């Protein structure tokens, strides 16, 4: 049996990002140098371009105008821009994006269709984008995933298999035009988005 050693250092707890993060985390309007972008295609990675547009809605369905969405994804070959990735990511592809929501709770990312990433058991996962959501009124960020509706391999995805069938659609981006996908994040209601503890 592989024992996990008990942690010797206790985690630093999370606190809300608050309403006033923009001048550091998404600071272009404040004349502060910006290092993150919502456009992951700038370095011209290979793969099918896509745009994901969405909104973040609270438990009453009202838009959240002061949220921040971050995404993390593999390149078209299923490689991550990280030293633990068995294969290197496409040159210049960082796989990370950050976008604040606007007055209508809307966000958008320009990126590429991620490739297939297998689990450590070797099971293929359907192409997905990891999402982290921050906002005032959220004591800790929430984690979810974007999958792509209509793919044949969704049925065999080992993570979706853990989600009650009636809630799986909350994790699916829907194609509304060629290359344009919609993904709404809901913090409540009948179609409340599935969030993960990782």
């Amino acid at each position, binding site marked *: 049996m*592989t024992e*996990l*050693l*008990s*942690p*010797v*250092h*206790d*985690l*630093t*707890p*999370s*606190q809300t*990002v*608050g309403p*006033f*993060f923009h*001048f*550091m*985390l998404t*600071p272009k*309007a*404040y004349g502060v*140098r910006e*290092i993150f972008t919502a456009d992951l295609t700038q370095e011209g990675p290979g793969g099918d371009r896509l745009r994901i547009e969405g909104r973040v809605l*609270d*438990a009453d369905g*009202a838009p959240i105008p002061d949220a921040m969405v971050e995404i*993390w994804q*593999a390149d078209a070959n299923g490689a*991550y*821009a*990280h*030293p*633990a*990735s068995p294969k290197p990511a496409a040159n210049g592809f*960082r*796989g*990370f994006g950050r976008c604040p929501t606007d007055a209508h709770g809307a966000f958008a990312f320009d990126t590429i269709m991620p490739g297939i*990433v*297998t*689990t450590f058991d070797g*099971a293929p*996962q359907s192409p997905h984008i*990891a999402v*982290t959501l921050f*906002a005032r*009124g*959220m*004591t800790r960020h*929430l984690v979810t995933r974007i999958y792509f509706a209509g793919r044949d391999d969704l049925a065999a995805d*080992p*993570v979706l298999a*853990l989600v009650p069938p009636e809630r799986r659609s909350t994790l699916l981006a829907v194609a509304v035009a060629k290359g344009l996908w919609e993904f709404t994040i809901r*913090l*409540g209601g009948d179609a*409340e988005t*599935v969030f993960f*503890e*990782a």
Partner: protein
Amino acid sequence: MTRLIYPLDGLKAHPPSLSPAYTSTVRRAPSKPLILLPHSLTEVTGPVYGHDSVVAGEADLTRQHAGEPLGERIIVTGRVLDEDGRPVPDSLVEVWQANAAGRYIHVKDQHPAPLDANFTGAGRCLTDTDGRYRFVTVKPGAYPWRNHHNAWRPAHIHLSLFGHSFLSRLVTQMYFPGDPLFPFDPIFNSIPDEAARNRLIARFDLSVTEPEWALGYQFDIVLRGRQATPMEEPHHD
């Protein structure tokens, strides 16, 4: 696909999503339980922003304008560690804060306290090989907010860190020792465990001060994650 590479125990330190005394959480907390996500390459990797992301001077918030900001000049430093106590080197730390009068430069901040033309309140730096970061800034002021009647936030600095995986992402706030507003702040008290709460309070450290120039505080940060080696499937024998 049941394995977790990092243990879950430490996550108890975090505040629950619903913390009703902090009233904005009521409509911004999921109502359904979180689903446990097994760790795949998606989770044990994460954004890498190293030496190309920070430029000289971004860690000194007192030298970003023509003159120096008003307020008590302070140095804030500490080590970023993982749950095994290993340093997390070459990792981005972003900070933002109110000025000494308790006013943010943010357009949405309407607190009638003065802005400071010499202070933006935004900084970033990279941890060194020992996991250490260091900022120079001014001590932020307390400020009122509308959570409840006569609500005031204790002085704090916001921090955003990535660590080395998707799981180590952390946004938090650092507080100052002895703040009389602690018992009244629903955000600080959204963390149920007193010991965990107190880990957000920096420690005054005379050895960090610089004589005739700045006071000094130590604030260590422990991020999720242990040595990122896929573990064997546990056998229940």
